[in-house]
């Protein structure tokens, strides 16, 4: 019989025979499916999160799809100015303006709510036709609710969930005299993201800033009109063009790269698991494939059947992985938004559901990776000899050869990593080095375990037969379990490296903060330094006021210029990494600047170079480089005298108080007196401890998303161990039957199974600890400096290592508990029956 229906029928017969394996071993099917899902989930989640952020950046700052072309802000750096300036401009016919006030409120839960207040009617004057705007928004809110008392505070649903509040509720503030209006959910196109939105007058009343504005948004107008506007500006205002979307993206690039790297790590772990599952299922079906070949099935038919089977798994697994990834992205997006807001001052929008665009790249990567992972095992199993004796011997021997080959590859990876670390000049080099260290560690594991077990076997006394068996059997177990152990090692090395790096970074930042916070008290004054000065000269003459100025460089917009007050504590707070001779003296004389480490590493600036500061100071020498942890912008530090050369009228953004003689002072008493006098409000006073607390909270927040993903990767690895133990369950039956028949009790057998995996997990620490430390060094000395421009030394905290070992142990015990229990509960007769089959 010939013809294509018969060839399809014969293919179906072969496929059906092969698929029967999964009816008997459903856990192997689950294992393979899970590996593919895992490979897809985090990759999709991180890509969707990054894509959502990029979409926000590309739109730039927006409010209800209105993009300002620029802003009117205080000319001298003042953070607020009288509304009268704006009113005057409106009276001159400049309609495309919208007044804005920003204010941060402290919540009762020690969080911060960033509120933006606008004049809604001015927004409607923007280019988008008001009717269209109203149609978009009125379905979600009534305008009167927003404009009239008791007012409403608009917030995205995602942010509300993050704060655990619902619409119509109010957020409780730390200051009981301040009350925010009830909440209303923002429409999807609001673009307010992490901020909350309310009516301008309402915020002015609540914050006691009547008649004041933070900025004025300028909407699209012709060039001539814009020029006319700039000419009409009162002296206290200056026009600043809107930030290029590109610079937001550039600012947050490192954060997004880190997220992408975590997604890739999880992808690699998932591919490991899928590869492991594929190997298991092919190895177990070797006798079946031999019988099919002997029955007349061709190699081509077998290839086709196995390929179709794999494609079905990949499509189903990828589909589920995508759905889970999208769900995860929705959960993680607010965390990222908070990080971006706190770290970079960037606000991304939160859609009610994550972008629906199908991320083809992750799906394609998963499909290609799964197919590549299957090529070698598929070839081996289809082309195996039809008569195959001493299979066990061959399998063990092959496992040993494989482990040696992996060790060679691991060594190559490490040598490459060493070479790259020496020549690395950009973040991609750093990430490549990171990947090679991770991979090297994972690939070296089987050989390391084999050596440890060989050594252990020599040390075990002969009168301990169970221990002898445990170690000997662990060597056998390395064959099928190696890959899931490698996946676990990957996750643990990443965990270890990240934790060590974060710990070191935290310690460095804390040390640095201790040094930099030269004054005991800082004041958050909008202006009013003069009144403060007058009051202090009467009531506390030994107290000095230090002003700190921050200005954006007029040409190189990514550079922040900051002043250093002349007092000794501030001078001494700057520790230079590198400097010219007599740097401090020259700096104090206003003959040069210091630059931040980020500016040196990422922008290529160096000591001895000259830079343009302003027209009055066109050539200024770079005298030194200092650490500036946590600042996502490049910074120049100058003496106040040099600042005044360029910006004589500039008003400082923050004010510090310190004693002129350096002696102890009763600060609480002074603060109380200042509050009682009505000079300042309590919430305007920030002491050193508070600053440190806020700074470290921001620091911790920065790594929240990374740590969440890190934890997920560890969970993924644990799932891999679970799948591996379940999949090789029937291979263990033979061992269990023999042991039971020879008088090893159920309890002893259960303890031995758990002990075996625990032993492997603990021995894996021989790789995890050194490679984790190496990874931490790469992160601290290579990746972070290249990504953020911050370097710090790696500090090894010894307590971290036993905790990691315990984590590995717990992970493995939990993962192997159920499969071990299954094995433990099976009767010996059943075990023997399975052996005989």
């Amino acid at each position, binding site marked *: 019989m010939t013809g294509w229906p018969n060839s399809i029928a014969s293919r179906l017969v072969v496929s059906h025979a092969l698929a029967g394996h999964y009816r008997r071993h459903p856990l192997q099917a689950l294992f393979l499916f899970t590996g593919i899902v895992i490979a897809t989930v985090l990759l999709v989640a991180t890509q969707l999160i990054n894509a959502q952020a990029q979409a926000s950046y590309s739109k730039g700052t927006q409010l209800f799809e209105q993009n300002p072309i620029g802003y009117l802000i205080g000319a001298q750096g003042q953070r607020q100015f009288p509304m009268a300036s704006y009113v005057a401009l409106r009276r001159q016919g400049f309609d495309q303006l919208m007044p804005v006030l920003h204010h941060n409120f402290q919540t009762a839960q020690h969080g911060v709510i960033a509120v933006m207040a606008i004049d809604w009617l001015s927004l409607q004057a923007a280019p988008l036709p008001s009717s269209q705007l109203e149609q978009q928004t009125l379905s979600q809110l009534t305008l009167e609710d927003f404009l009239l008392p008791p007012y409403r505070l608009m917030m995205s649903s995602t942010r509300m969930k993050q704060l655990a509040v619902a619409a119509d509720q109010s957020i409780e503030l730390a200051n009981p005299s301040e009350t925010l209006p009830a909440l209303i959910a923002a429409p999807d196109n609001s673009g307010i993201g992490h901020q909350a939105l309310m009516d301008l007058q309402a915020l002015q009343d609540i914050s006691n800033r009547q008649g004041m504005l933070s900025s004025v948004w300028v909407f699209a107008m012709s060039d001539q009109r814009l020029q006319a506007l700039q000419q009409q500006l009162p002296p206290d205002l200056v026009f600043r063009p809107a930030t290029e979307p590109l610079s937001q993206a550039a600012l947050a690039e490192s954060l997004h790269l880190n997220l992408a790297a975590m997604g890739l790590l999880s992808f690699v772990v998932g591919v490991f698991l899928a590869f492991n599952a594929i190997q298991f299922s092919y190895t177990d079906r070797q006798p079946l494939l031999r019988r099919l070949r002997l029955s007349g099935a061709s190699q081509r038919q077998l290839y086709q059947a196995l390929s179709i089977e794999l494609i079905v798994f990949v499509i189903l697994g990828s589909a589920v992985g995508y759905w889970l990834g999208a769900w995860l992205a929705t959960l993680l997006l607010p965390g990222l938004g908070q990080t971006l807001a706190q770290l970079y001052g960037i606000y991304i929008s939160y859609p009610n559901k994550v972008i629906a665009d199908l991320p083809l790249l992750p799906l394609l990567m998963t499909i290609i990776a799964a197919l590549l992972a299957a090529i070698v095992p598929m070839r081996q199993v289809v082309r195996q000899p039809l008569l195959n004796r001493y299979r066990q011997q061959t399998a063990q021997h092959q496992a040993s050869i494989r482990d040696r080959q992996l060790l060679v590859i691991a060594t190559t990876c490490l040598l490459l990593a060493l070479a790259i670390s020496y020549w690395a000049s950009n973040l991609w080099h750093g990430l490549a080095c990171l990947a090679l260290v991770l991979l090297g560690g994972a690939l070296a594991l089987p050989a390391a375990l084999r050596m440890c077990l060989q050594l252990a076997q020599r040390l075990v006394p002969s009168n301990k037969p169970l221990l*002898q068996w445990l170690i000997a059997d662990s060597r056998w177990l390395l064959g099928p379990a190696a890959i899931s152990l490698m996946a676990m090692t990957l996750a643990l090395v990443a965990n270890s490296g990240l934790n060590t790096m974060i710990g070191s970074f935290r310690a460095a930042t804390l040390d640095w903060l201790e040094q930099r916070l030269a004054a005991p008290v800082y004041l958050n004054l909008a202006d009013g330094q003069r009144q403060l000065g007058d009051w202090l000269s009467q009531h506390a003459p030994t107290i000095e006021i230090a002003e700190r100025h921050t200005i954006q460089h007029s040409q190189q917009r990514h550079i922040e210029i900051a002043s250093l007050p002349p007092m000794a504590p501030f001078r001494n707070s700057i520790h230079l990494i590198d400097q010219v001779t007599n740097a401090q003296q020259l700096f104090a004389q206003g003959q040069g600047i210091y630059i931040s480490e980020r500016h040196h590493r990422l922008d290529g600036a160096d000591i001895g170079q000259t830079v343009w500061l302003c027209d009055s100071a066109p050539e200024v020498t770079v005298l030194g480089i200092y650490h500036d942890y946590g600042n996502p912008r490049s910074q120049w530090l100058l003496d106040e005298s040099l600042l005044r050369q360029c910006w004589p009228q500039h008003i400082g953004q923050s004010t510090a108080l310190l004693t002129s003689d350096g002696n102890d002072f009763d600060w609480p008493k002074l603060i109380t007196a200042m509050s009682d006098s009505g000079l300042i409000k309590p919430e305007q006073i920030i002491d050193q401890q508070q600053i440190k607390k806020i700074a470290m909270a921001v620091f911790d927040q920065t790594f929240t998303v990374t740590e969440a993903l890190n934890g997920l990767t560890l969970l993924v690895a644990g799932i891999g161990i679970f799948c591996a133990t379940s999949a090789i369950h029937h291979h263990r039956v033979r061992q269990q039957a*023999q042991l039971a*028949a*020879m008088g090893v009790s159920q309890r002893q057998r259960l303890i031995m199974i758990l002990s075996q995996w625990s032993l492997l997990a603990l021995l894996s620490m021989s790789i995890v600890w050194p490679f984790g430390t190496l990874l931490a060094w790469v992160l601290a000395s290579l990746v972070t400096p290249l990504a953020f421009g911050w370097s710090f030394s790696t500090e090894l905290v010894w307590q971290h290592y036993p905790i990691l070992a315990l984590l590995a142990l717990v992970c493995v015990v939990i993962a192997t508990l159920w499969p071990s229990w299954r094995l433990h509960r099976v009767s010996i007769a059943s075990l023997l029956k399975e052996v005989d089959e």
Partner: protein
Amino acid sequence: MLELETISHWFESSGATEPGQRVLNNISLTLHQGESLALMGNSGSGKSTLLQIAAGLERPQMGQVKLTGELLYQLADKRLSALRREKIGFVFQQFNLLPGLTVVDNILFQSRLSKRAVDQQWLNHLMAELSIEELKHRLPEQLSGGQQQRVAIARAIAHKPCIVFADEPTGNLNDSLSHSVMALLIHLVQEANSSLLMVTHSAAMADYADSVLKLQQSQLIAAATA
């Protein structure tokens, strides 16, 4: 030594409780110290099941098993495991040596498990008789089928058990090898003063035992003794 009293057994999944549908029906047998008994029967007759019941590996639905005066199925797992360690030896069809342990470690495994002192003289004698002295430090995967089965026999007898249970001990061997292995097994069991309960489908192998019983239609039928 070994007493099976009115053993009846069926598998729960079959739901067969009627006498005519049981795997084993009201079977009794006694094996004295030093005796050897072969159980024969067609494939699926229940002979392996009977062996496993006798060895304390599967609880019968009805009946009792007594080994050296102890009722096996009234013992807790800890005591039963101890009994297996000390008084029982097993020889499986699939050899079932512990991979990763050398030949000598395999042989001594059960002795060491029961914390008995190794009788070096007996061990040397066993290995000489079984011609496996030179294989002492090899791993099971480096042995042929016949060599593995001889090591399995050594393991089953090394601790001088009261009784050896053998399930198709020559099932995976060719004819000439089967005869030599069976002869060795019988000889060494006699030397150790152990009893032997063996399952086989081969009449030729059954002839090595003192007596032969046949399982037919869930009943035990006496057959001609050797």
